[in-house]
């Protein structure tokens, strides 16, 4: 079916899907922060599963279209500033979820999360 659509139109759809993916991820991140601050404020109205499903289908559509159009992901394109910002938010959310626990226990868990994160990153992304 996709072959019947003009390549230019497919590129427009691909670019738009990237925009909707960005919007979906911003919504998801804001929802996570909102839930972290006040549990239930978002999930009472809209479940995370719904947001994740939408983002997942969007991502799948981007992947399929990229294959169809022969677009390859640029591995050097990683935006380090955004990555560090996201990492900082993730650590804040983890720390926030442990706030009721002992402060030293929370810091210890946070340290463990960081170490696990670093090792997973090394295993997946670093070349031999």
């Amino acid at each position, binding site marked *: 079916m996709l072959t019947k659509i003009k390549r230019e139109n497919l*590129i*427009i759809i691909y*670019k*738009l899907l990237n*925009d909707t993916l960005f*919007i979906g991820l911003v*919504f998801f991140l804001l929802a996570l922060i909102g839930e972290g601050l006040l549990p239930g404020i978002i999930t009472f*109205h809209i479940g995370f599963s719904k947001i994740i499903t939408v983002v997942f289908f969007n991502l799948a559509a981007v992947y399929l279209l990229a294959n169809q159009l022969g677009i390859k992901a640029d591995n050097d394109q990683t935006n380090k500033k955004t990555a560090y910002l996201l990492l900082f938010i993730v650590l804040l959310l983890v720390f926030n979820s442990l706030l009721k626990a002992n402060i030293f226990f929370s810091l210890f868990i946070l340290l463990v999360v960081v170490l696990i994160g670093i090792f997973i990153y090394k295993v997946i992304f670093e070349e031999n």
Partner: protein
Amino acid sequence: MIRIKKDMFDLTKKIELDEKNYKHYRLFQTAVYLLALFLAVYLFIIIAFPTQFLTFSFLNPNSTKNNLANIRNSEGLFPERGRIEGTKPLTFDASVIGNYSTGRVSIILSKKSEEFVSASLNARKSYQAFFYPEGEPVGFRDGTAVKSEGNYYLVSDGKLKKFRNDSILETLGFDKNYFIETTAEDLKYNPKGEEISDISTYPNYSIFKIDNEYYILKDDILRKFVSSQAYLSSYADNQAIEKTADFLKKYPLSDDTEGFADGSLVSYGDSAFLVSNGKTLPIDSSITFENMGYSWDDLRKISGDEMAMYKKEKLFTIFSPHPDGTIFVTNEDQKYYLIKNNQKHSLPSSSAALSWSKNNPVIVSEMSLGIEGKCQLKKNPFSFRSYYCEIPLEKFKGLYGKDFEFVLNSESNIKIDTIDTSFKKSVTLENLKLAITETFAKIKGNYAY
């Protein structure tokens, strides 16, 4: 002047299009971002101005989705299969947290039902238990030692038993200083019993302290309190008569222990419980706790031994009525009420209320029983057999309580399938300010230790 680059906000700059198609893309992109903005505004509105839905299905009366409470006919009984005889009212309660602007009630009739000829709906706001019918006034609790006009009494077996003279009182070991001073008017709600004149036996509900443990005499059997704080939830420390261990030989000792006063709030681990009729009701959340009008200061930390004496009951949620032992006080004229057996009983004074529960009483508005909202049921033009009406809730603002009591009056023999209610907040600046204040208060509460 801000200069906008041609490819600004383009997340896929490297994938190029000719000028005409790029213009198309930018047009669609603007539409997508506008849609996202509308979606964000819509989500903000439903979060800041939420609508609360409550329902009850007579087709599935045991469904967990049913959250309208205490559905009853004029006899106070649950109307089986939703059948209501003409002229007899149907009453139900809806529990909602927060201030809402309008309440809408929809009644969906069964296929076999008569149509409504004329039907109206009345609404009041308070706590479910405060809507209970008023029973006989009650006086002081068993075991309370009171004095009035120079006479000394012990409330025993529900009766007011007078000490014949001071010498009997002192010989039995009661200390005059610890009797609660009250008026003859307050004492009239406890019927008079025979005088206490025998120094060889103690009247029922006498309280003793033996080796720092508390006991109460019931039917000539001593019952030990499970702990000091269980005792203190019912009686004052200094009221107990000090005895030595030899005293335990005088009366048989019961295997059963005495627990906390009905209506007590206890915490075990991270959970809070209500104690009532020998059972504990686990409170489902801090939101329920606060919206029931309870005070955190009344929460007593208890041990495993204290907890073990109780059978755990089902969850106490925002939809549950206050249990037996709850004390209500009206904010207008400080009138006290005790909840017992689905009735509210007036209490003569604060000292009588204190004899039943040492907790802070739950504040209610006496006038809330008299303030009513009313609406006439209309046929829903978009649905067969469905009738609805809307009641503005502004007049209930500021009244204590979280429950709306709805009374449906009709002249037809009806059979209801479903009752749906929805509570809406108007999108106003005032409600927005309130929503923001409440959200910040909740966040603050969430981070408070």
